[in-house]
């Protein structure tokens, strides 16, 4: 099927071997536009995919106690120049289960593409989810990507996410993630984005430390160049005794690009503690001069610092 070959090629461009889709011991779900193309379950991973009135929906469940060895691949995208993809995803990790999800979101030819994702993620007691999300939006800047997620991290569960969009154009990207962490739960979210030309990046990540001794880290790394703009807010609320949260945001700005960062910390329990650091500006002069003293040109030095930060 031509579309499968296209998907394989898109995966390759994102640095992922497309052979993962042919292996019987690796679970996957693949959709382009509003069509589910392929689905494979493995023991412990149950998948359901359907068409809805205005898009598509999927449910992914990892059974209680199951520890899934290979990452579950979730490939979604629009391959055409124009198109829509509205997708609802529900992910449920039952108690003490563990899995890694790799989401590949590709819009390689996007000239006017809309991708709206609504995700509900629920981690049961002591469950562990690593959610790695890689995006490729093509060279034209014509993608509008609106990912929204509500994540519930149960008692002693661990949620680690990594969102990356560092090659090609971004287009319009509005991230809205809300995480609630229960007693002794951990939420660690990393976001890395490089914006160019007129790319428009808005990120809102919020963690509520709702349980005793819950912990969180929001780490955001954004570089913008040309006329791109980035508007970032990392919000952490410490509501319970022993809750510890940290927001760490670095934005590098080149050319006429504009960036801002608003780390918001709220503490409503006297024994909770939330800290933040934010650095926005051009590339640090000492870093540049150090690399230049090692023989790099100014342009090479800037490139190395930016690439390193987004790695």
């Amino acid at each position, binding site marked *: 099927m031509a579309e499968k070959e296209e998907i394989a090629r898109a995966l390759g461009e994102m640095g992922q071997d497309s052979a993962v889709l042919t292996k019987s011991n690796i679970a996957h779900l693949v959709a382009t536009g509003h069509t589910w193309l392929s689905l494979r379950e493995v023991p412990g991973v149950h998948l359901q995919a359907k068409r809805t009135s205005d898009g598509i929906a999927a449910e992914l469940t990892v059974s209680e106690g199951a520890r899934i060895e290979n990452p579950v691949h979730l490939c979604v995208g629009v391959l055409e120049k124009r198109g829509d993809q509205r997708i609802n995803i529900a992910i449920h990790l039952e108690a003490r289960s563990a899995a890694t999800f790799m989401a590949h979101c590709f819009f390689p030819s996007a000239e006017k593409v809309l991708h709206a994702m609504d995700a509900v993620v629920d981690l049961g007691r002591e469950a562990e989810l690593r959610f790695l999300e890689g995006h490729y939006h093509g060279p034209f800047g014509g993608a509008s990507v609106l990912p929204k997620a509500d994540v519930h991290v149960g008692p002693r569960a661990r949620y680690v996410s990594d969102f990356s969009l560092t090659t090609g154009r971004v287009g319009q990207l509005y991230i809205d993630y809300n995480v609630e962490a229960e007693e002794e739960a951990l939420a660690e979210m990393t976001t890395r984005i490089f914006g160019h030309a007129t790319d428009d990046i808005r990120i809102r990540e919020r963690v509520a430390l709702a349980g005793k001794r819950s912990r969180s880290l929001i780490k955001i790394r954004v570089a913008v160049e040309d006329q791109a703009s980035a508007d970032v807010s990392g919000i952490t609320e410490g509501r319970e005794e022993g809750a510890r949260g940290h927001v760490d945001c670095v934005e590098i700005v080149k050319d006429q690009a504009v960036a801002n960062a608003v780390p918001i910390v709220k503490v409503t329990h006297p024994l909770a503690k939330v800290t933040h650091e934010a650095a926005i500006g051009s590339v640090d*002069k*000492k870093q540049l001069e150090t690399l230049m*003293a090692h*023989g790099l040109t100014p342009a090479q030095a800037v490139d190395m610092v930016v690439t*390193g930060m987004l790695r």
Partner: protein
Amino acid sequence: MTELLRIHSLSLSADHKKILDGLDLTIAEQEIHALLGTNGCGKSTLAFVIMGCEGYLPATGTIVFGNRVINDLKIHERARLGITLAWQEPARFEGISIANYLSLGSPSADPARYLQRVGLTPDEYLPRMVDKTLSGGQRKRIELASVLALKPKLAILDEPDSGIDMLSMNEIAAVIEAFKAEGAAVLLITHREEMALVSDRASQLCGGRIVFSGTPSNVARHYKARTCIVCDGNECGNG
């Protein structure tokens, strides 16, 4: 001996304050030259001027490297001529591995060899990042190794003996030996007189100029005796 670096009548002010004031200094090829001076006397400033850092353009004076006046060259152009600098407090980088950092100058260099030279085990350090997870002393060792890996003609080492978990005298001596073995000249900046003893020649900086040059033991004695002919001890405490 062939002259490598000649600085003549160098002056630099910042915030209406003279930091360097008619400084003269020469260093020969492969010479280990210690520069002694108390806190705040302008040692790092001199290092930045020689390297060509932004904001450190001298008001007067010439810097000649090889046969070339380099006053107008950018940092990387000076680096490509063979000058490099190990900062007193080196910068940290996210996402740059030590292996990568040690190969910046020549991709074919063997990073493990240079790590061993500064007393770090390659297996442990090569995959680590040059970021804030390194201690101050570890970061300084990495900087020395990376500067060594560049095979420079002139390495300016700004206080390799200072900072938390500082290098011992023996370790510094071993590092200097390594630079010698690579055929590099070294400008070894320090405020500890015993450090000068690993050098071939030494100079004392005070009041923005070199007040005394000579054999390491003579300069060390002069520096230790706190005798300064320029400021009479009013500025540098060496009265």
